[in-house]
C-alpha cells in the first residue's frame, strides 16, 4: 500500500494487529438479511456525525433552545438537511434494529453459545429507545414539551418511590430548563457512550464466535 500508509504502519502498527480480523473466514452463502445489523450500525454512525454537527449550533437552555433550532433550520447552511438526516437516521436506526432482531430470531442465532449476544442486543435496543425519548425534548417546542411532560408522568405511577423518581428525572416537579439540560446530557453523553460500549461487546462476540449459518 501507499507510502503514507507504510509510514503510519511502521510507527503505529495497523496491519499486523488487525491481520487476524481482516483475514478471518466468513461463510460464503449468507443471504441479504445478514446486512440488516450492519445497516442499523451505519445509521448509528450517521447519528453520531450529524449529532456532532448539530451540537455546534444547538443551545440546551430554556431560553435559547427553540431559537437555536429555528436558526439551525433557517439560517445555518444546510442546517435543515443535517437536522433531517439526524431525525430520519433515528427512525431508520430503530426500524433496522427491529428487522435485524427478527432476522436473528428467525434464524435462531440466539441459541447457545450466543445467548449473551442476544441479551447485549436487547439492552442496546432499550438504550436506543431511551435516546429517542430524550432527543424528542431537545427542540423545546410545544409537542416536545408536552410529550415529555406526559411521558415522564408515567414514572410517577411507580409504587412508593414514583414521586422521587419523577423528580429525579425532571430535576423539578415539572418539566423545566433543568429537565432540558438533563435530557441533553443523557442524549449526547451518557446514552451514546453506553450504546458504543454495548455495540463494542456485540461485535466482539460476533468476531469471537463467528457468524452463525441459518439453521
Amino acid at each position, binding site marked *: 500500500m501507499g507510502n503514507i500508509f507504510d509510514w503510519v504502519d511502521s510507527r503505529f502498527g495497523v496491519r499486523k494487529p488487525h491481520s487476524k480480523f481482516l483475514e478471518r473466514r466468513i461463510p460464503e452463502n449468507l443471504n441479504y438479511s445478514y446486512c440488516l445489523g450492519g445497516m442499523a450500525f451505519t445509521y448509528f454512525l450517521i447519528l453520531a456525525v450529524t449529532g456532532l454537527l448539530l451540537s455546534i449550533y444547538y443551545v440546551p437552555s430554556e431560553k435559547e433552545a427553540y431559537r437555536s433550532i429555528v436558526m439551525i433550520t433557517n439560517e445555518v447552511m444546510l442546517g435543515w438537511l443535517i437536522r433531517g*438526516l439526524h431525525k430520519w437516521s433515528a427512525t431508520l436506526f430503530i426500524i433496522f434494529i427491529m428487522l435485524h432482531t427478527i432476522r436473528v430470531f428467525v434464524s435462531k442465532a440466539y441459541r447457545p453459545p450466543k445467548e449473551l449476544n442476544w441479551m447485549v442486543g436487547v439492552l442496546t435496543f432499550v438504550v436506543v429507545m431511551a435516546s429517542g425519548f430524550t432527543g424528542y425534548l431537545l427542540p423545546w417546542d410545544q409537542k416536545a414539551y408536552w410529550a415529555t411532560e406526559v411521558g415522564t408522568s408515567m414514572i410517577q405511577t411507580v409504587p412508593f418511590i414514583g414521586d422521587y423518581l419523577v423528580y429525579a428525572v425532571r430535576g423539578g416537579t415539572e418539566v423545566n430548563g433543568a429537565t432540558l439540560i438533563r435530557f441533553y446530557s443523557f442524549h449526547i453523553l451518557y446514552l451514546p457512550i453506553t450504546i458504543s460500549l454495548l455495540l463494542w461487546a456485540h461485535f466482539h462476540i460476533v468476531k469471537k464466535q463467528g457468524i452463525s449459518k441459518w439453521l
Partner: protein
Amino acid sequence: MKKEKNFYPDYLSEIIVAMLVSIEILIILALLYYPSIGRQIDFTKQFQPRPEWYFLWLFEMIGYFPGNSAFIGTVVIPVVYVLLFLLIPYIDRGKNGGLKAIIVGIFLLLTFIVLTLISVL
C-alpha cells in the same frame, strides 16, 4: 461442501455496498420529508401530544389502565415485556423450547404491531 471467503476484501466490500444503500435510503427520505419547526411552548394550554411512532404501543396500552391500576400499564407490563424479550434464549430450552420461543416471539411482535396500529388508526 463448506464455502468460505475472506473478510477482507470480499466481505468488507459487500458491507460497504450495504452501507451505501442505507445512506441512499436516508438521503432520499431526508430530502423528501424534512422536519418542520414546531410551535413555541404554550405552558398554559396543555394539549395531548403523540409520542414518536416507536412509543405509540406503550402510549396506547397505558390508556387501558386508568386510575390506581395505571402502574400495571406503565411498569409491570413493560418490565415483563422486556424480560421476555431478553430471556428468549432461555425460554428456548428443553423439550418444545423452539415452539415456546416462537410463541413468545410472535406474541411480542404482534403486541407491538397491533397496539401501534390501533393507536394510528
